[in-house]
């Protein structure tokens, strides 16, 4: 018989060692420290077998470099180990609940990954003759049809590379429409609770940005908006559901008022997950809205991108949509590019990206949409909203919900840090959540709420997962209210303690430099 537990430890023997013991390596069993590539790599190490090539004959126009680029390499086993070790220092939706408000961290189905890697999609050049890419164009077209139908809109621009790029697309279409009408309107109105990309995008397109106030219940102040509308206002940017987690009840009235004043309505669709399959933004008078495929349609966030931000457009803005786009002509799919635009699409505002957009994200999003279907997507929205309301009503006795009386929330529950002990703030509760095994919620956004905590559980979470999370937040809220000093030290169990962000910004170190003593020795 083999002895599995060879060290022979039995519970009655008690703890073998304390937390204070340091190790030779700095590692703690499965918690492994990993140096930088530049500290372990060698210039002559490689994980790729390539032949030596004779360079007697070159056609480099006299610009051949004298020596290889100073880039250390690693063999394949070292590479696999380096990145595997790094990966284990990340939290991820695969590990647990990720309630980052407005970011919609939902499960990323692996079928999406498998489909995106089919050689017929992944190993295809964007400039191949269209006769050899009919299936890829069919994917773009099929996804476009879904997006138009789900939103009740006339057209969709598929090429924007991310949400903020989609905002840019929508505002360029609005600006092009005004230009075509001979109007030089110069102002875009943005609610003060808007995401920072909204005013940045408007400014990037050359607009002046003015704030629209909110009502005490956390929605756009319709009366104030109507007062401000006038011949200089090109349009409004409204997030709906909004960043306070509420549906803009007056959305149709807002759209009608803006249209009557000669403007257009841009809707930030970051929170579309709350209403997908249930509400069509087109019914509310929206002229343009981006859809973050990496939120609502489950393409992976990848540690900060790539995103994908198709923009649905009303009939009024459709003629100005960017190039290229896919059109079905009989049984065939064609790409409308610069040369064919004149016949089909003369008013286009132009091209936003080099090729056709985030194809790898289109295949994933379409796979997800087909999996859910119209009925499943509706259930997605309903479960996402139900989960958020469950979190809201399970925590509103220990945390202040500033808009808790404004009706049901949509996809996310918003709290403030009111009631925390002197010197304790949202950041402390957030860092405490890390020790409890969760990614923190969105913190200090929206700016209109003091110490905002924005929690979006998404439809991915089971009731049991929510109950455990709620328990953890309740416990942390109690600690913050009584001012438990231990909470200030959190996180204790993460790969790193709180990091000095001020130092990083004051003396920026943005790439690796060899240690000074090593340089002196050379």
């Amino acid at each position: 018989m083999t002895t599995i537990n060879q060290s022979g430890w039995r519970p009655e023997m008690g703890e073998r060692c304390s937390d204070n013991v340091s190790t030779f390596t700095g590692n703690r069993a499965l918690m492994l420290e990993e140096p930088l590539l530049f500290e372990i790599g060698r210039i002559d190490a490689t994980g790729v077998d390539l032949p030596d090539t004779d360079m007697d004959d070159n056609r480099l126009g006299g610009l051949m470099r004298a020596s290889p680029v100073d880039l250390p390499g690693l063999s394949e086993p070292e590479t696999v180990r380096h990145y595997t070790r790094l990966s284990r220092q990340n939290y991820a939706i695969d590990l647990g609940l990720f309630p980052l408000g407005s970011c919609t961290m939902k499960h990323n189905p692996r079928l999406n990954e498998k489909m995106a890697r089919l050689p017929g999609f992944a190993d295809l050049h964007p400039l191949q003759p269209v006769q050899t890419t009919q299936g890829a164009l069919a994917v773009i077209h099929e996804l476009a049809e879904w997006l138009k139908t789900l939103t009740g809109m006339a057209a969709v621009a598929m090429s924007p590379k991310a949400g903020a790029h989609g905002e840019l697309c929508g505002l360029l279409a609005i600006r092009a429409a005004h230009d075509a009408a001979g109007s030089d309107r110069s102002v875009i109105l943005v609610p003060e609770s808007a995401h920072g990309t909204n005013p940045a995008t408007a400014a990037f397109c050359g607009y002046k940005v003015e704030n629209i106030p909110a009502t005490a219940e956390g929605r756009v102040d319709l009366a104030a908006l109507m007062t401000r509308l006038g011949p200089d206002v090109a349009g409004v940017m409204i997030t709906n559901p909004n960043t306070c987690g509420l549906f803009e009840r007056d959305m149709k009235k807002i759209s009608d008022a803006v249209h009557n004043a000669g403007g257009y309505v841009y809707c930030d669709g970051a929170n579309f997950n709350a209403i997908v399959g249930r509400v069509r933004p087109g019914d509310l008078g929206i002229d343009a809205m981006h859809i973050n495929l990496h939120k609502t349609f489950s393409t992976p966030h990848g540690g900060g991108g790539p995103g994908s931000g198709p923009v649905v457009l009303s009939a009024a803005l459709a003629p100005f949509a960017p190039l290229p786009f896919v059109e079905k002509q009989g049984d065939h799919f064609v790409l409308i590019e610069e040369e064919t635009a004149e016949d089909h699409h003369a008013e286009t505002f132009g091209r936003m990206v080099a090729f056709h957009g985030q194809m790898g994200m289109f295949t994933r999003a379409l796979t997800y949409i087909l999996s859910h279907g119209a009925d499943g997507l509706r259930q997605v929205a309903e479960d996402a909203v139900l989960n958020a309301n469950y979190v809201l009503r399970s925590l509103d006795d220990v945390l202040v919900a500033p808009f808790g009386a404004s009706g049901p929330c949509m996809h996310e529950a918003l709290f403030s840090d009111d009631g925390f002990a002197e010197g304790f703030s949202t950041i402390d509760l957030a860092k405490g959540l890390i020790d409890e095994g969760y990614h923190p919620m969105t913190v200090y956004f929206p700016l209109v709420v003091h110490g905002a905590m924005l929690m979006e559980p998404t439809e991915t979470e089971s009731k049991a997962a929510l109950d455990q999370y709620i328990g953890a937040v309740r416990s942390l809220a109690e600690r913050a209210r009584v001012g438990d000093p231990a909470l200030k030290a959190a996180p204790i169990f993460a790969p790193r303690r709180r990091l000095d962000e001020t130092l990083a910004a004051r003396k920026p170190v943005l790439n690796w430099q060899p240690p000074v003593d090593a340089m002196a020795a050379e």
Partner: protein
Amino acid sequence: MRYLPLTPSDRVEMLAKVGAGSIDDLFIDVPDVAQHEGPIAGLPLHASEMAVERHMTKLSRQNLSAAEVPFFLGAGAYRHHVPASVDHLIQRGEFLTAYTPYQPEIAQGTLQMLFEFQTQVARLFGCDVANASMYDGSTACWEAISMARRVTKKARAVLSNGLHPHYVSVAQTMARFTGDALVSDVPDLSAEADTDRVIAAIDDKTSCVVVQYPDILGRIPDLRPIADAAHAKGALLIAVVTEPVALGLIRSPGELGADIVVGEGQSLGVGLQFGGPYLGLFACKEKFVRQMPGRLCGETVDAEGKRGFVLTLSTREQHIRREKATSNICTNSGLCALAFNIHLTLLGGGGLAKLAKLNHARAIAAATRLAQVPGVRLINSNFFNEFTLELPKEARPVIRLLADREILGGVSLGRLYPGNDQLGQGLVVAVTETVSDEDIEAFAAALQEVLA
């Protein structure tokens, strides 16, 4: 539904907890005009994994993928062999399903990777600093032109005619709304890049000069005289690299005097993917860093003094500065940056040099052989892994006929510059390490047949 954990009884219990009689009660704020009973009409219902896989696989088979045939396309997207470990590692859930590293204590994996990536890009481009990536090369190029406006307080950009026409289009789209003046032209089929024309176009109002290196026809312009001329007039030199593998063999743009270097990182680790997602590279001199767009990762220490990494200099960015931000960008191409980082780690400087030499040798072999096809002329006197041929007839239909013969034979200039009669016979041919002698022979034979 396989992705939804709530059971019907969970939902009943939870609705009771929130005080709602039914799910519809949670949507009472939606105006009646937008309320839909039941699934939105005209769309199919949910499907099994097997059914979806069958549908997607069928569509994928209606494409001719690059691996199936002799393949010679480039013009801003290049087919290189990607080691198997790259795709394996980027699919680790901790990388794939993480968010932007806003909570650095539990995102050191992504942050350290970005710090390594920034260091690699800076060294490859010969610059002091690089950011954590942009959407793609074309958008990075426009961001560089915007940045030059902020640095120089001037708004006239001179574009080399060797700049990728899609990059020019993207810049033109934006400049129409920002008021920047762009000086641009289409290339001609000459052996050398348009260095003299570019230098002559620089004046005191010029904010920047934008030069692709190697350019759209595959020519390698010497950046030094352009840098000198730009600097003499207070303008910046922006170099654009669409094929970073080239820098394994030719001198870096930073070394030749470029102030900002941007590029498309797709050719390392990312794959073709029919045009996206790709990877915008962005690097510059240190003195301009506070005008740089995009995310930056920086080194710092934690409360115990251990080294760690955070996103930094965010006072440039939209979530702090709102309408005064350097850019509206709110994302990078994180996972593509990881693929690039891993591929370059596997190569190392030595491996990159070998890969580049191999590419150049394959390209010389192909150019030599194709120039022997009757009526075909090689335009370039210099090139890396891509060159331009002048055919005796319009190239676009030739490409289609070659595709019928299962040869993907390059990118016609007619596609890139529609309506331009001077360029219609031009064909841009890229030759990487994935191209075999048999592929070159098959291409040459088919070309001869199609041209006959």
